[in-house]
């Protein structure tokens, strides 16, 4: 009965503004309106506090120490791995490798899993909406080993045609690399379907979850995805840390990437043997303090009703989407059903950087540029777009400030 009621009237989500000190600052005398969370999210005090407390009480290097602080730090670091495991619903904590970010997570798959397996002429299937981080590592394999990149287009509305992707998978395909959510279009891809169809042809799938993990719960087991890359700083966590989820069997079959401390079993002058995963892929002192911050960020995100957050963000997006319909000089790029809270557009006669500059003086922070997605810009025939992205701390009033700012930009730049 209660559950039903909750479904009928979803919790009204109150953006936790007070957790984010930076949101109350002024920019050129105007209140900051931060609509650039898809580039990087702000950090709640819960994250900063957790890191500070750890540094002040329990800090030491991990793994190799017998002493109390080293044990405490190791425990905190491994607990963070467990938190990430639960966040992604992975089967085991040791399917989580901590990396320096989402980009490194994808490179880890390229260097340690795919590079030793791919031959000239073998194919990698990817989509035109990928972020450069999910493109350039594959270009390396093209440049260095003769791999072939097979590009899957998006529909005009930015949605991904799973049939087209399926059709691109052939006998020579070694990997499908696809975003869970586009950082430009906001498109959420039908990942479960993609994985099922790729697996039917025996091809593993890497999902770039740098955006996807922020806006919805991720269930890597339910998705049955082989690799899932994500990054801490977009998840309200610290910079300097990200993670790769990979199925245990893949991790075990992967060769090392960086060499150094922690990742070995034994080193002699003549040979070296390697530790089991995940240690094998975590050479050197890891981002220890950041792991504590990342765990705090995951706890923070999980402390909300995530469906309510999603509904809140969707409402902000809809409000913005509706408001810009009246601007006949503005073309929205990415209008797929069920998309995340990212609004990208170009405007006739106004360059994205000029618009962003005007908005900035109004306190409104948006991104202008190619968003590390040049093939997608090419696809839509634009050099750059404006992107406003909405996070759990944004408000309807902030969307209004964006719209107001766009009016101003129009007035200034087309007078």
């Amino acid at each position: 009965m209660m559950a039903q009621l909750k479904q009928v009237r979803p919790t009204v989500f109150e953006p936790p503004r007070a957790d984010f000190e930076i949101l109350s600052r002024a920019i050129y005398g105007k209140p900051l309106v931060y609509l650039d969370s898809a580039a990087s999210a702000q950090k709640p005090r819960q994250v900063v506090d957790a890191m500070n407390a750890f540094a002040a009480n329990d800090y030491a290097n991990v793994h190799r120490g017998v002493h109390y602080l080293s044990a405490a730090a190791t425990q905190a670091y491994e607990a963070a791995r467990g938190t990430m495991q639960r966040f992604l619903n992975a089967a085991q904590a040791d399917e989580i490798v901590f990396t320096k970010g989402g980009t490194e997570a994808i490179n880890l798959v390229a260097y340690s899993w795919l590079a030793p397996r791919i031959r000239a002429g073998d194919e990698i299937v990817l989509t035109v909406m990928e972020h450069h981080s999910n493109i350039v590592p594959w270009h390396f394999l093209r440049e260095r080993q003769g791999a072939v990149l097979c590009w899957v287009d998006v529909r005009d509305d930015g949605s991904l045609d799973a049939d087209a992707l399926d059709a691109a998978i052939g006998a020579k395909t070694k990997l499908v690399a696809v975003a869970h959510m586009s950082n430009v279009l906001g498109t959420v891809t039908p990942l479960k379907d993609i994985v099922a169809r790729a697996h039917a042809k025996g091809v593993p799938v890497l999902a770039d979850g740098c955006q996807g993990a922020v806006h919805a719960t991720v269930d890597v087991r339910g998705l049955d995805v082989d690799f899932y890359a994500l990054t801490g700083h977009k998840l309200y966590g610290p910079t300097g840390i990200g993670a790769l989820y990979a199925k245990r069997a893949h991790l075990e079959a992967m060769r090392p990437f960086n060499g150094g401390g922690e990742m070995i079993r034994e080193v002699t002058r003549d040979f070296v043997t390697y530790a089991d995963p995940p240690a094998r892929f975590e050479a050197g002192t890891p981002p220890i303090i950041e792991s504590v911050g990342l765990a705090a960020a995951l706890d923070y995100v999980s402390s909300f009703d995530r469906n309510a957050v999603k509904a809140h963000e969707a409402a902000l997006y809809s409000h913005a989407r509706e408001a810009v319909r009246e601007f006949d000089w503005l073309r929205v790029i990415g209008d797929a059903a069920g998309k995340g809270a990212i609004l990208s557009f170009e405007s006739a006669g106004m360059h994205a950087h000029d618009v962003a500059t005007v908005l900035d003086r109004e306190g409104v922070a948006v991104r202008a540029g190619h968003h590390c997605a040049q093939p997608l810009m090419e696809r839509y025939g634009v050099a750059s777009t404006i992107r406003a992205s909405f996070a759990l701390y944004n408000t309807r009033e902030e969307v209004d400030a964006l719209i107001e700012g766009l009016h101003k930009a129009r007035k200034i730049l087309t007078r």
Partner: protein
Amino acid sequence: MNDDLRELYQEVILDHSRHPRHFGALAGATHSGQGYNPLCGDRVAVYLAVDGGRIADIKFEGKGCAISQASASLMTDMLVGRTIAEAEKLMGGFLHLVKGEDAADLQGDDRERLNVMAGVSAFPMRVKCATLAWHTMKSALEGGAAAKTE
């Protein structure tokens, strides 16, 4: 309206960006250069006909923000007819001006005409937009390696 913005997006700038002077390719160019700003995707190509140490003709092609297009247009307008030595001096002065540095080397009429770009110095993230065409011009004169402004 914000003063800095008014200063940046003056009528002259917007006019140049909308109606760029010397726009197009140049048949018989003796020098050319390509510029690209990977941060925003702005591109510019400049074509020069140099004759006896003097810039006899200039054209440019490009795509980009108001600042980069206006700056390119203004540049072509101002450099045509100059000696290479004069052009180089002007380029140096321009770079100082848009970075908000001491631009004492820019004087008189040159100073006055380029002053419309001085507002850029209040927008550090936009300086590269303003300098792209000028860097490209420099590289064209020096032999034409692709200019860039990261």
